[in-house]
Structures are given as structure tokens and as C-alpha cells.
């Protein structure tokens, strides 16, 4: 039974990363209509920025949680201003190819300087150790990752669904020309949205650094699963991405316990089934 709970916890942790990354992808897709294949590379950059902050500047994990998303978010905004904005109105394929190329370049540069093996990033002192819950042992850091990710996901959902800024974002997703004619600077809002989505990826990278180590290909390993999560949840659906992210992490964890051979494919099998039954995803709307 302990093994089942342990796999459930692993599932929840993976689900936290899936949720944060797919949320960023959903925000970007909703606003920019771009399938951001660079997301995994930007997640990796978040982890590397945390590593540099600690190893070069002595800046700890808590500050890295704030600074790394801002730095990577600014990098993302520069990408959007200099490259992605020119793809407005073009087929999705162009955005996919461009961001895929960006991902390969970013990963290549980091691999060139740091190789493929992982760099260590220590768990902060305050989150070391664990708690015996009676039915299982809970490492505190892992519990923190699940809770913090959930809070960030819900805060992002609240921002987009329940605030005036979110209303601008949702309206601009539907009709950017009219929203701009109301006096709102839509191009600037698009840049900031890309920065927000990328910042979420970088935040996931910082959270992941003490668990998975800091590796140039850490994003490439994850991004395909995250895309499957987004497709299952429904492209552009905020709550769909959050729920599907956590749910698929748990399903993957349970599969590891009950039928480990299928644990690497269960997400993709579910994706195929969902596409066959509801091509717009579980919570997505038809275009």
C-alpha cells in the first residue's frame, strides 16, 4: 500500500509540472494562437537561471522562485517582439516550426556548455526532511511543490477568469481588432501574455531543479507529454489545462503501480481516445 501512495505522490508532483507547463501553453495558445514548442527549453532555462543565481550570485531558492521567471519571461518577451509577432495571421505550422527551432537552438547552446548530465541543485534547508503521515512518508519539498503549483495555477485562473485584465485577455483572444479599437494596447498585452506563459514555465523549472537536477534536455523530455495534456484538456482552456495536468499525473502514477509497462504510454493512449471522442479536448470549445 505504501508503494501505491508513493506512486500517487510522484503522480501529483509530475501533475504539478504538467499543470504549470500546460497552463502556460494554454495561455499562450489562447492569446497568440501559437503552439509554443519552445516551452520545454524555457522551462529548462528557468532551472538553469536558478542554478546560476545560486552558484554565481549566492542567491537562494526563494529569490530564484521570483527572479528566474522574471528573467526568462523577459527573454520570452524579446522572442515575441523580435520573432513571434511577425507570425500573426499565418498558419499554426509557422509558429510551431519557429518555436521548435528556438527550442533546438536554446537546448543546443546549453548542451554545448554544460553537457547532458545533470547539475545538482540542493533542496532549501526549510524544505528538507519529511513527515510521517501514518500511511506514508511525505518528503516536505515534494508536498511543497504540489501545494505551491496548485496555488499558482489557481491564481493564474483567477487572474484570467475573474479580473478586468483577464477580461481584456479573453476578449482579445476572440477579437483583437475590436479590443484595440476600444483603446487597449493589444500588441503590448500579447507580449506580456507571452512573458506570463513563459514565466510559468520558468517557475516550473525552478521547482523542478531540486527534484530532477538541472539538465539541458530536461524540458525536451517533458514537453511531448505536456502537449498531450494540453490536447486532452482542450487547447486554450485554462481550467482544463490545470485539471488535466494534475489528473494525468495521478493516472500516470497509478499506472506505474498497477501496470508499469504502460506508464510511459498511458497519457498518449488517453490523448488518442479523447481526440476520437471529443476532438476539441475535454473542456475545449470548437473554433
Amino acid at each position, binding site marked *: 500500500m505504501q508503494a501505491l501512495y508513493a506512486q500517487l505522490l510522484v503522480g501529483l508532483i509530475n501533475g504539478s509540472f504538467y499543470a504549470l507547463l500546460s497552463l502556460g501553453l494554454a495561455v499562450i495558445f489562447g492569446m497568440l494562437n501559437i503552439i509554443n514548442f519552445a516551452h520545454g527549453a524555457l522551462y529548462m532555462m528557468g532551472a538553469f537561471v536558478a542554478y546560476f543565481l545560486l552558484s554565481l550570485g549566492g542567491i537562494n531558492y526563494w529569490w530564484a522562485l521570483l527572479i528566474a521567471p522574471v528573467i526568462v519571461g523577459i527573454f520570452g518577451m524579446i522572442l515575441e517582439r523580435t520573432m513571434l509577432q511577425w507570425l500573426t495571421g499565418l498558419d499554426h505550422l509557422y509558429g510551431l516550426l519557429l518555436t521548435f527551432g528556438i527550442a533546438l537552438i536554446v537546448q543546443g547552446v546549453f548542451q554545448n556548455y554544460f553537457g547532458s548530465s545533470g547539475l545538482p541543485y540542493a533542496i532549501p534547508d526549510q524544505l528538507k526532511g519529511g513527515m510521517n503521515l501514518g500511511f506514508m512518508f511525505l518528503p516536505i519539498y515534494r508536498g511543497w511543490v504540489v501545494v505551491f503549483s496548485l496555488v499558482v495555477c489557481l491564481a493564474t485562473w483567477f487572474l484570467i477568469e475573474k479580473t478586468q485584465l483577464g477580461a481584456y485577455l479573453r*476578449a482579445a483572444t476572440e*477579437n483583437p*481588432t475590436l479590443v*484595440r479599437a476600444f483603446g487597449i494596447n493589444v500588441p503590448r498585452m500579447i507580449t506580456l501574455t507571452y512573458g506570463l506563459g513563459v514565466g510559468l514555465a520558468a517557475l516550473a523549472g525552478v521547482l523542478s531543479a531540486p527534484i530532477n537536477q538541472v539538465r539541458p534536455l530536461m524540458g525536451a523530455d517533458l514537453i511531448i507529454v505536456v502537449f498531450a495534456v494540453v490536447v486532452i484538456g482542450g487547447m486554450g482552456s485554462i481550467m482544463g489545462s490545470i485539471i488535466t495536468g494534475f489528473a494525468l499525473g495521478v493516472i500516470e502514477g497509478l499506472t506505474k503501480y498497477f501496470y508499469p509497462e504502460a506508464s510511459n504510454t498511458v497519457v498518449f493512449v488517453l490523448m488518442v481516445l479523447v481526440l476520437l471522442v471529443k476532438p476539441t479536448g475535454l473542456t475545449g470549445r470548437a473554433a
Partner: protein
Amino acid sequence: MPDTAIAEAPAKVATGGNILQIRNLEAWYGESHILHGINFDVNAGEVVTLLGRNGAGKTTTLKSIMGIIGKRTGSVKFNNQEIIRATSDKIARMGIAFCPEERGIFSSLDVRENLMLPPVVREGGLPLDQIFDLFPNLKERLNSQGTKLSGGEQQMLAIARILRTGASFLMLDEPTEGLAPVIIQQIGHTIARLKKEGFTILLVEQNFRFASTVADRYYVVEHGKIIDGFANADLAANMDKLHTYLGV
């Protein structure tokens, strides 16, 4: 009447200073040349109506003023400021508001969010209680999804949301299209009341019977040019011409 004659002619029914001045406005959708040199003026506080058949260039004229068309040349002056190269968000912030023909109600927003969406660009916008006084239906449907409203209610919402912003110059594109006579009457009363409150309105209409209840002046658009213009007082005298222009 040649375009230049209209452009140079003083307003026949001037109720205030010149607020909008359009000269040689040309516009394109991609390769299609739609406007071929539009000239007209709008004075502060008046309701000016652009009449014309489908495809004449009326909506394109409004979109060109608002800056939401691909390419445009010529001169558009609002309060003596040139806006031909300004982006639409800057134009809106100068005090021009646009209500599109398709109403542009956002399906992902409820009525309250749709109503509150356009930012206040300057002082002088109508407070919510006055807006609900004009459109009582909206108050009852604040939590409904915007696109679940009836056509008439959606039109009211589309007009209501630009009244909050403080814009003094409103451009309404066929606000009566597809609506029941009783709703058309209500929109007519609203436009008349807005005029009394000091708004300047540029209206695009095909229904000149409706337009005659609110307009001070008319311009007739055909093939992307203004081909005629007259005051409401001269409407009866111009009726035969108007029937020919509009093909009714």
C-alpha cells in the same frame, strides 16, 4: 455633386465647431481598393448619417476613421489633430468610439464584463445608472453570457459599453440591422437622447426612414466616394434622388 464641392462646402446644419474633417480618404482591403477619395465633415453635437447601398464603402469609411483597416491614405482630422497614421487604440483614447455592425459582443464574457470592457478614456462618460436608465434590459441580464442576449439586447449592449468610456464622438454602424420595429424605435430614442446630451454621432444606415428620425445631415456613399450630401430639412426635396441612389 463632385467630391471636392462637398469637401469644401460648409456644413449645412452646423450645430457646433468642426470635430471631424476627412479629405481624400482612400482605403484598401488587401489588393482591393475600396475608398476612392472620401471627403466630408462632421460638426460637434450633430448626427450625420452615411447612406448608400451594400458595398458602397460606408462601413469601410468608419473602419478607416477608426484605424482598423489594412491600408489607408489621405487625411482624417479629429479635433484638428491628424489621426491617419495613429493606431486604433490611440484613436480610441482621443475620444472616438466605434460600435461595429456585427456588434462585437464577446462570448467568453458575461454582460457585465462586456459592458465594463472598454476602458474609460476621458471624463464625461455616462455612469452605469444612466446607462441602465437608457437600457433597462441590460441591468436584468448582467450575469448572462453576452452572446445569449437577443439581437436587440446585444445591440443595446454594444452601444451601452461605448457610452461609459467618455468618448464624445460615436460611430454606429447599422445599429438597426435585423432588429424588430419596437427595438429600432428604442434605439432611435436613445440616439436622440445622446444627441441632447451633447454626443456627436456618425451613423451608417441603409434604413433612411429610421435615419430621418435622428439625423441632422446625410452623405450618400457610392463606389467608395461621397456623391451627394444634404441636410435633414432638405430630405423631402431630395427623396427622388435618394430612391435612385439607394435603389429602393
